[in-house]
């Protein structure tokens, strides 16, 4: 079993590692670019003192890049709020920005690349117009991609401001319109909460977990998703202490039709990261389990792709490809999938020298 997974499941294990094992662990950590997160996790557990000086210096030094990213995101948010000051719309932050502003443990040392914002569907045009008017530009300029985003996806084509380059994704629901499951955005808004001292809103804890689960196991591409799994582990570990959350989570999963992704999130988080979940919660979610065949496929395909790869093993390329297909299958109706993948493949081929 990977050393990194052992450390996440039981951080105190670091005290027992040999110098060789530290080298292997750090290779896993570097490969997944989670140095800052692991360092902060160990520090939060009071384990800084048992780590040898060299890896500890490195883990601490690697906190700086995510700190810069978070500072840049805070600046971007200020600029966005100014640009949208004249638009009558609520704004809800998703994922990294939400975790950061809510001060959640999952945000510690966590870098993120895009700013994800949810607005009501009937405000999309006004928001887009205000941002474009304030200097933001569209990222994807190809007509097909623009239509793809607007018509089938759950967001505007990504926007960025030329002075700063940070990408903003404006969503109106959390899963694409084409997907077989459609969580009602109204339900998400109803349970959302405002951040203290701000007009910005974030999802309820249960909805945060479900969104993260849906992103990893429903519409995201699973390969390279270890950071997302770590998010789930940290979110669950934090929230599960609250009785309201434990009661609400399965109810909400049913309401939003996200029971299956929740089931996978809980299973894989437990199996790979050792997340401690109350038996009652696990029992309540059992009825979300898939049938035996998809269950077996996921249990076989997901760990090699999702888990950290030992430096000497080759990437689980075939399993990753199957999971990529699956994510697109969930994302698009079949006929569209073939067209889209062909276009993507053609574009990639023509981009190579």
């Amino acid at each position: 079993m990977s050393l990194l997974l052992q450390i996440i499941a039981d951080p105190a294990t670091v005290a027992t590692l040999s110098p060789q094992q530290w080298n292997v662990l750090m290779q896993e950590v570097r490969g997944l670019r989670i140095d800052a997160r692991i360092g902060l996790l160990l520090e939060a557990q009071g384990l800084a003192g048992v780590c040898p000086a060299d890896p500890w210096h490195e883990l601490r030094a690697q906190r700086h890049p995510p700190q810069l990213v978070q500072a840049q995101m805070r600046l971007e948010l200020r600029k966005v709020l100014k640009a949208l000051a004249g638009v009558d719309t609520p704004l809800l932050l998703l994922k990294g920005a939400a975790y950061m502003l809510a001060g959640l443990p999952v945000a510690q040392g966590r870098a993120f690349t895009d700013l994800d914002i949810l607005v009501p569907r009937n405000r999309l045009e006004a928001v887009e117009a205000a941002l474009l008017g304030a200097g933001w530009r569209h990222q994807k300029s190809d007509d097909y991609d623009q239509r793809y985003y607007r018509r089938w996806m759950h967001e505007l084509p990504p926007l960025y401001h030329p002075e700063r380059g940070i990408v903003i994704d404006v969503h109106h629901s959390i899963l694409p319109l084409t997907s077989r499951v459609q969580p009602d955005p109204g339900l998400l808004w109803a349970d959302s909460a405002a951040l203290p001292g701000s007009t910005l809103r974030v999802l309820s804890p249960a909805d945060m977990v479900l969104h993260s689960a849906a992103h990893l196991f429903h519409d995201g591409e699973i390969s390279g998703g270890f950071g997302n799994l770590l998010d789930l582990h940290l979110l669950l570990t934090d929230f599960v202490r609250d009785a309201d959350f434990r009661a609400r989570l399965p109810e909400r999963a049913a309401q939003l039709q996200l029971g299956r992704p929740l089931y996978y999130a809980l299973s894989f988080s437990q199996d790979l990261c050792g997340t401690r979940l109350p038996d009652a919660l696990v029992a309540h979610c059992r009825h979300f389990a898939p049938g035996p065949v998809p269950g077996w496929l996921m249990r076989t395909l997901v760990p090699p792709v999702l888990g950290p790869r030992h430096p000497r093993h080759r990437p689980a390329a075939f399993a990753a490809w199957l999971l990529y297909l699956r994510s697109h299958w969930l994302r698009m109706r079949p006929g569209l999938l073939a067209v889209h993948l062909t276009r993507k493949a053609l574009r990639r081929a023509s981009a190579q020298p």
Partner: protein
Amino acid sequence: MLSYSTSSAQNFLYRSGPFVVRLRTPIKGLQPLLRWCYDAAEEPAADAYVHLNLRVDQGPLRRRFLKPQAVFRFENRTPFEPYPQNHAFPLLEWGTNWCIAMRGHRFLMLHAGVLERGGQALILPAMPGSGKTTLTAALAYRGWRFLSDEFALIDGDRGHVHPLPRAAPLKNNAIDVIRALAPAAEIGPVFEKTRKGTVAHLRPPRDALERQHETAAPAWIVFPRYIAGHDLRIGRLSRSMAFTRLSQNSFNYRILGATGFERLATLIRRCACFSAEYGRLDDIAAALEGLPGLHAP
């Protein structure tokens, strides 16, 4: 340097300044140059903590006979396009510098040459047109200890500079200039038509490698500018100007955030700052002998 072979590749473990490097490569031509460059440094223990896991692999099979390539790998990434295999050594050197710039955030890393005398460090920031590498190389044979031609590593403990003596790439004319100026300098093979022109590497002087664990307290920052045929002009530089220029000439000033700001401000406060224009190495080398406090008892 520790090394051992497996059936397909050679493995090396060596120290470069504060970093321990593990390199794996099947390319036989690399071994003699590696040893030439890094053997004089203290050997790391077999279970030493490795900061950089590097590989220089051969390129794809189909190219191996006509135009063999070398591919640089760092942890599980392949950050660069392949190089021709006979340029594997410059590729390794530039690749290693890139990795240090990406990962060395324990230090505030300035893009500068650094030399030491009497326990004090002279920092020569690498503004465009500075001729920094040639100047640093020349000074290394004029009574200064060579700390680095590329990185000024400023630590957080005492604000000292840590040596990182690596092969210094001399480009085009600089090769002949250094050969003439410093007959004792050991210059490696010439690599032609690299992406940076003709390049040959200056081996770090022996004492630079043997003493690469000895840090130095920063005392002087001189911004050099080479203008052919120009007479020497050297004068004090305002601290605000020095701070601003250095903040823009650093590998990781922005990434270090408040830490970078405070560390750079401290550095500027403790150093005498100058700017210099020169057309002849002899002129500036002589002028630097007059730096305040250089020959203080």
